[in-house]
């Protein structure tokens, strides 16, 4: 039986066998969802792209970044500025441009970051998260200042029919982007590059002794991670319809980081779980707060308070995140089952 179900040897093929049906399933599910949830699904997919990139950098390569929101801003502004200057610019090329500029930015930051460790890196990226949005305000004439730049929504192709909903098309684009990103990252992480990244994370000195160029690996991780943030930022600009400094504040960076830790650090699955929580939890809590009939100060801040409390509690109760806990559960269930088999076998043998 096992031989019939054996998965292909090639990692690329095995991942493709998994990701293609998942993409098809997700796209099919958009037909069942309301416009509101399609919009949220698109947001989950966008966050998953950025969070997966951050997972490669922080979870696998061990470099803490508190500034990924700023990198998303680079991507979003690249796309928005392109569309402002050239309104008819092809959609896919605006995404590619965002990926390239953010990847380059990430490369520059990565060269600086390769010299920094632990809290020093955290501090530098934190300053980046706070400082970079201010550039958009200073160069207001080009980048729109506090008002930001408007971005026209991508129009669904005519072949889908004139009445095809905008939100659903947005969800399709984001899903395809997310699945493609996760597919590429899964290959990267399970290949040689991922192995060297993990080696650098576990023990820098040992990695260096094994002939790994630690600085280079760290810069590569930053470029990969930033490129993902750039794609996410670009899609975020289309999703939000506007690119303004307030959308890319410190909060965004912290949300991304908390998502990958709550989801389960070091696993791409964790990035997906974390992104779902990031989007769905506020929807639930604001519905809850709205239904409780409290004063506006309480209603407006309750979702944030719950989010903060969830972060604290998750670290106390689920230190390995959702994915880590799931894996542990599956493992212990498996363990119990196999042990029962063992007992049965020894019992039969005794008879």
């Amino acid at each position: 039986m096992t031989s019939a179900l054996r998965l292909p040897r090639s990692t690329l093929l095995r991942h493709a066998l998994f990701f293609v049906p998942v993409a098809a399933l997700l796209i099919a599910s958009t037909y069942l969802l309301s416009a509101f949830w399609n919009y949220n699904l698109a947001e989950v997919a966008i966050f998953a792209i950025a969070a997966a990139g951050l997972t490669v950098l922080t979870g696998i390569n061990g470099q803490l970044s508190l500034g990924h929101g700023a990198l998303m801003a680079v991507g979003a502004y690249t796309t928005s500025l392109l569309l402002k200057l050239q309104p008819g610019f092809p959609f896919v090329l605006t995404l590619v441009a965002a990926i390239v500029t953010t990847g380059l930015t990430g490369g520059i930051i990565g060269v600086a970051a390769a010299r920094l460790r632990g809290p020093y890196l955290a501090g530098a990226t934190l300053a980046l998260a706070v400082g970079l949005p201010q550039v958009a305000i200073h160069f207001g004439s080009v980048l729109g200042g506090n008002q930001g730049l408007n971005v026209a929504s991508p129009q669904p192709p005519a072949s889908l029919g004139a009445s095809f909903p905008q939100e659903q098309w947005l969800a399709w684009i984001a899903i395809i982007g997310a699945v493609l990103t996760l597919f590429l990252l899964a290959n990267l992480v399970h290949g040689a590059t991922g192995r060297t990244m993990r080696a650098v994370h576990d023990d820098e000195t040992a990695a260096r002794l094994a002939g790994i160029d630690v600085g280079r690996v760290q810069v590569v991780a930053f470029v990969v991670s930033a490129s993902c943030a750039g794609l996410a930022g670009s899609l975020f600009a289309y999703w939000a319809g506007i690119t303004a400094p307030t959308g890319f504040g410190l909060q965004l960076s912290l949300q991304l980081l908390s998502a990958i830790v709550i989801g389960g650090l070091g696993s791409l699955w964790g990035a997906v779980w974390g992104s779902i929580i990031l989007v769905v939890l506020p929807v639930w809590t604001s519905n809850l707060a709205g239904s409780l009939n409290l004063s506006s100060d309480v209603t407006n801040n309750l979702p944030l308070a719950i989010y903060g409390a969830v972060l604290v509690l998750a670290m106390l109760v689920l230190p390995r995140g959702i994915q880590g806990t799931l894996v542990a559960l599956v493992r212990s269930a498996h363990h119990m089952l196999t042990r029962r088999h063992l007992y049965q076998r020894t019992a039969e043998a005794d008879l």
Partner: protein
Amino acid sequence: LRTFLILTVDGVTNGFIYAIVALALVMIWRATRVVNYAQGAMGMFTTYIALYAISHGVTYWLAFVIAVSAGFVLGAGIERLVVRPVESRPALNVVILTLGLLILLEALAPMMFGGQVKSFPAPFSRVDLSAGGTQLFVSPFDIFVVGAVLTAMVGLLLFFQRTTIGLRMRAAAFGPEISRLLGIRVGRMLMLGWGIAAALGALAGLLIAPAIFLYPNNMDEVLVFGFTGAILGGLDSPVGAVAGAILVGLGLSYVGGYVGSDLETIGGLVILIAVLMVRPQGLFATRRHRLA
């Protein structure tokens, strides 16, 4: 020259406030190898408590004492209740925990005290002094800020160098295992350290609030600049943290005054990156094996 003087005074005054946040961060870092990102939010929360007391007829000075004591209790409580259980976990978990506390406190404050921006009283005039017709660019409140911070610093120095508890705290931070064998109650020392650090944060909150007003995330930038200062000076060195923070204050003030106020934070970032490229462990860190 006039602008230069004004900017210098501004920079030094702000720098002293960043310095006290930096000092609090360094204290906690040395003791528990944790960067407390909730430091600023804790100071914000205690400032709200002070304002609540003042609006109920309490004098400024009593409210001042209440806020600093509340900070101490808050800090010690947080260490005991939520930080200690995660101490042995990966460093990133503690980072997320303090970020969670930051978000929680910033949401609780408007829920309890109301969300609108509030002004906070200053105990002394904020109008610049003048002596014999020449303006001095220094207000009585500026002098109070610098004086209060210096008092706190000297007090801390004496506490750590001259008292038994101070010695025990240093020992607990330096070598927890050996200290424990020598009969020092390390857990209690850590609690005390967090309490003192949070009291410093409360002081910073009280001193900055008259200038920047009081609202739930009014301390975010103060925390970032205090952190920047601490990193600039080296997270292991209290003297470095103070010097680094004053440097950050001056740097931001000059960038804001001469280049453009929008670019203040980006200016701070450039300074930070430039210094870290030359000295990745900060200006004042002694070269030794990194512990984290």
